[in-house]
């Protein structure tokens, strides 16, 4: 008997010691816990025996006691409803952060047992469940579909031991998940909530990884999170954002916008999605966990703070975070903008600016799908190296908030194949050989110009033309790619008498192209575009349209028709032809260029250039009578000229006064690469041509900004009969 008592006491002592053994891992995984559980199971299997029933009873009591003593739990009660779900989801993580910060009596390893009251029975809870299951430290989770008024939160527990874990500070343990009155919310929105997606399942990460590699390889991924409607679709918000995303896509073809919310929009208009570069993640069989994963691995984030914005902020993604609780602010270090709806302004330009500063891939767009399935695939084009982003170390660097915004016009060829009478190439003194440099621009010069321009100014776009014909340069597509590699919009204007490889041209990423002409029939066309062949132009327009269809290029192609008194009939024919090819058609009143010639017409012979018979003949064809136009422009005093922001540079890298003045050496301001923007501005404003030009109000003429010009032009067309009017200034010298 004594031996039996001793054995029992030793056994009990052993059990007692084992029960209170400290260990490193979770208490439920400890060897002592396992031992007790085994004993309980073993004894239960022998429940017929009274002795084993006693062992079982005491063992389970010890198990329960260990639970009380060793568990580091916090039991909280929260509520969520249908309209609050997007806020409730990060709300749980926000609460955790708050608890860690403000309740230091809780150990680091505390686990949370959450009780969530679903206040609205129609609350779809799966997304909330998915994210709380995969966030960190929510050990046990309970949902209750009873009104909070009917159940005392203290009773939302099934075991007494849980009751012990409600915090002494009851207010902290019972809260509204959408509560925003939590300290440090600004820090949370700056640093993000890492808990929200702390334990995203490996399979979700794998799927997103695979998605990014197969659907949009080598693209810059922008995760987009938009407002959803009561059914959980973001269709309405997407309607507003598609044009914005499409405009960014035009400038940055190698960007893909990955939509994190479900949408039905793609089924109805797949072409719209393709043009805007939108990829619906959820529509590819992925769920909310994959959206969480994408919000972490994307390159940029654009969209609502809740719920995915928190995760993206924690991953330090650049982008736009909409509707932060902490108000508008900017984190320049991470290229993050936190903006409320009212302050959003022009999101496309913000996104473009971020992409430009990130130096995203600027290669030709390989994403656009061909218009028809039987098209041949686009020719592969090498991806240029990523351009260096200008920084404070650059010689010409100006901080972004202090920069002027300019448009560059850079000639890539020294001359033109036509001699149009309205253009200085056709009407300038041909003896002035210095007016136009001969040759081609070399790529290094263009790169240097663009590097300097992007360092000291905000470049809104680059036109590879001024007075000359860019397509005469056989490397025009490569030069366009150079411009695109800087993340800049690129345009050209051409007479289209020459077109080498239209597919290669459009594949270069060209954003905008103008075809300039003045007739549909040769006898009309050749008057305004001397030396040109309209049939060749029309053939090249057809080739251009075919190339656009074959490559799926998104280049905006515009046919620009110069209107004279005697080519109105041809305008309708050319309009029909152009629109049939899918081009935009624009027409405008022709006028005499350059500025110096117009000054002569205005009577300023000192600053003007002599008029020739050809000039007079041209003036006779103009529907917009220059003298009547001058009467309009003189009415308004002009003290500044918007053409200062259009920097014209020739093939040598020399900067000229403006795009309305001739290439005469008198208008050369100097080498663009040797002058800072401040010096450029000083030289522009002090040039002796600007005063007389502004005195006549000519900037308004070149901007076509006054509606009276249309009245003048229409009246002239109505009055036009068999006689050709010619009006010249009587003091103008002849024979030029």
């Amino acid at each position, binding site marked *: 008997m004594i031996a039996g008592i001793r054995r029992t006491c030793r056994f009990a002592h052993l059990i007692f010691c084992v029960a209170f053994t400290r260990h490193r891992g979770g208490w439920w995984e400890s060897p002592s816990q396992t031992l007790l559980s085994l004993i309980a199971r073993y004894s239960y299997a022998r429940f017929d025996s009274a002795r084993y029933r006693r062992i079982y009873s005491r063992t389970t009591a010890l198990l329960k006691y260990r639970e009380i003593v060793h568990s580091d739990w916090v039991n909280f009660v929260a509520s969520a409803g249908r309209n609050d779900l997007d806020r409730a989801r990060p709300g749980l993580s926000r609460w955790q952060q708050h608890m860690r910060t403000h309740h230091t009596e809780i150990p680091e390893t505390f686990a949370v047992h959450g009780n969530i009251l679903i206040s609205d029975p129609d609350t779809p809870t799966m997304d909330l469940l998915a994210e709380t299951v995969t966030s960190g430290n929510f050990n046990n989770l309970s949902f209750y579909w009873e009104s909070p008024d009917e159940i005392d939160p203290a009773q939302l527990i099934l075991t007494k031991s849980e009751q012990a874990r409600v915090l002494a500070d009851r207010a902290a343990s019972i809260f509204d998940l959408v509560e925003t009155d939590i300290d440090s919310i600004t820090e949370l929105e700056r640093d993000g909530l890492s808990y929200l997606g702390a334990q995203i399942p490996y399979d979700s990460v794998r799927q997103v990884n695979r998605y990014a590699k197969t659907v949009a390889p080598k693209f810059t991924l922008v995760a987009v999170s938009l407002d959803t409607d009561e*059914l959980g679709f973001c269709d309405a918000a997407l309607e507003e954002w598609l044009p914005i995303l499409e405009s960014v896509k035009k400038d940055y073809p190698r960007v893909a916008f990955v939509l994190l919310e479900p949408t039905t929009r793609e089924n109805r208009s797949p072409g719209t999605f393709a043009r805007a570069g939108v990829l619906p993640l959820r529509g590819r069989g992925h769920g909310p*966990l994959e959206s969480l994963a994408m919000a972490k691995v994307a390159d940029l984030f654009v969209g609502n703070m809740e719920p995915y914005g928190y995760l993206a902020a924690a991953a330090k993604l650049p982008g736009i975070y909409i509707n932060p609780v902490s108000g508008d602010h900017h984190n320049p270090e991470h290229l993050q903008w936190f903006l409320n709806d009212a302050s959003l302004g022009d999101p496309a330009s913000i996104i473009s600016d971020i992409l430009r500063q990130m130096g995203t891939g600027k290669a030709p767009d390989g994403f656009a799908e061909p218009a028809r399935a039987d098209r041949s695939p686009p020719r592969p084009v090498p991806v240029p190296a990523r351009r260096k982003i200008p920084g404070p170390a650059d010689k010409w660097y100006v901080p972004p908030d202090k920069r002027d915004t300019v448009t560059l016009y850079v000639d890539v060829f020294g001359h033109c194949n036509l001699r149009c009478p309205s253009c200085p190439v056709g009407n300038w003194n041909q003896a002035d050989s210095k007016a136009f440099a001969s040759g081609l621009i070399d790529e290094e010069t263009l790169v240097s110009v663009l590097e300097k321009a992007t360092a000291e100014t905000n470049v809104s776009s680059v036109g590879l033309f001024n007075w000359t014909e860019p397509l005469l340069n056989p490397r025009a597509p490569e030069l366009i790619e150079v411009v695109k590699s800087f993340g800049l919009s690129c345009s050209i204007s051409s007479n289209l008498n020459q077109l080498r490889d239209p597919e290669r041209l459009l594949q270069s990423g060209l954003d905008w192209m103008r075809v300039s002409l003045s007739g549909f029939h040769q006898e009309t066309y050749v008057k305004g575009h001397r030396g040109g062949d309209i049939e060749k132009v029309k053939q090249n327009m057809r080739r251009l349209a075919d190339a656009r269809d074959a490559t799926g290029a998104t280049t905006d192609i515009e046919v620009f028709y110069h209107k004279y008194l005697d080519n109105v009939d041809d305008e309708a024919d050319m309009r029909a032809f152009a629109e049939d090819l899918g081009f935009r058609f624009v027409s405008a009143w022709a006028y005499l260029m350059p500025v110096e010639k117009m000054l002569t017409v205005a009577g300023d012979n000192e600053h003007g250039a002599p008029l020739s018979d050809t000039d007079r003949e041209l003036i006779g064809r103009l529907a917009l009578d220059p003298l009547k136009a001058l009467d309009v422009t003189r009415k308004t005093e002009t003290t500044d000229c918007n053409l200062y922001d259009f920097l014209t540079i020739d093939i040598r890298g020399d900067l000229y006064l403006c795009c309305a003045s001739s290439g005469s050496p008198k208008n050369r301001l100097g080498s663009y690469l040797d002058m800072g923007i401040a010096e450029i501005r000083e030289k522009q404003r002090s040039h002796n041509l600007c005063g007389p030009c502004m005195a006549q109000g000519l900037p308004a003429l070149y901007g076509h900004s006054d509606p009276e010009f249309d009245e003048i032009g229409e009246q002239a067309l109505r009055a036009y009969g068999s006689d050709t009017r010619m009006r010249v200034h009587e003091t103008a010298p002849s024979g030029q």
Partner: protein
Amino acid sequence: MKKLLTARNVLRDYKRTQQSVAPADGFLAIVDFGYQHYALGDLLTKEVNFACQAIEAGVEHIDLAVAIDPARPSASAQGFVTPENYQTHFLNLAPALLCTPMLRSFRLLRDGGMTASLLREAARDTGAPMWPAYEDQILRRITYPLGHDAINAFHEKHGFIPKLQPPRGYLAWAEAYRARFHEDKFLVSINPRQSRLTANPAVIYRDADLDEWYEFIGVAGKEFPDVQFLQLGGFDEWRRELSDFPNVTIPRAEGLGLAHELALLTISDLFLGTSSGFATMATFTDTPYLICDIEHFFAPFAGIDVGAEHYPFAHDKQLLLWGKESADLLLAHLESNLEKSRSSTAADANASPIPAAMSLR
């Protein structure tokens, strides 16, 4: 949260462990994936069993406790479920748990100690009715496949069975979705099994013939323009050309998930599909259905003979097919249902008299 290890505290805590506030007015249903399978059909069948037992026990609520121990997340037969991926498998099935009739609360327990406490208190202290039995849970004991014995017995005794509800919180969503996108349509949910297209093909001889199905859908599009099909099931389980049919909506291709699909199934006018998890959902709702290719070995578990047209608890629009389907057969069944739906306005005679407070909530 540590306490001083005094004798007084020990005794006090010990006494407290013997008391409980566990409510006894609910049926405690425990789904422990440590030894129970991650299978949609099994889960849904169990839920109907829970409801039958709850009604027999005279309680109005079911408190569902789902136990997943991360260290031991699956039964031995499903070794592909590991501590690293159990969350994915669980969340793939979680909406089905919300279909439990009379559901009052849903608890996810990842803590083994908590599960043990819960069991002990329910079994020993409160006397709350529960499933499985305490010893079965302790010994991790369950037999597969789960049959309809208890369900059939309940039906025989009471004349009805408790029906599965749309996942809690998704009925209103499904009705709003239908009103917005398919308001005047005859909605047909379909689920042709296609395991061969998934990442883990299994028992592929049971796969449906998708050529027959797509021919059926194409003809239905011409002959029955008012019919809209909803393709339910995994994103892998349909061929690309299905998305070209204007009379087919694929919820997974719109970013929707299982919860949305189960809800849409319950409000559909007809379900057509292979014997599967979705077919199980249809089985235990009032939705008319044609379930195809039922395996003969399942007949005794279902308590019916091979070739039987209906389950004992089914109504006359709920049909069973013990062989492969064809396009002609599906068309005939669709046409028959269209005629019946146009002529019939009577309520279903087998609607279960669940307490009004809990019906479809």
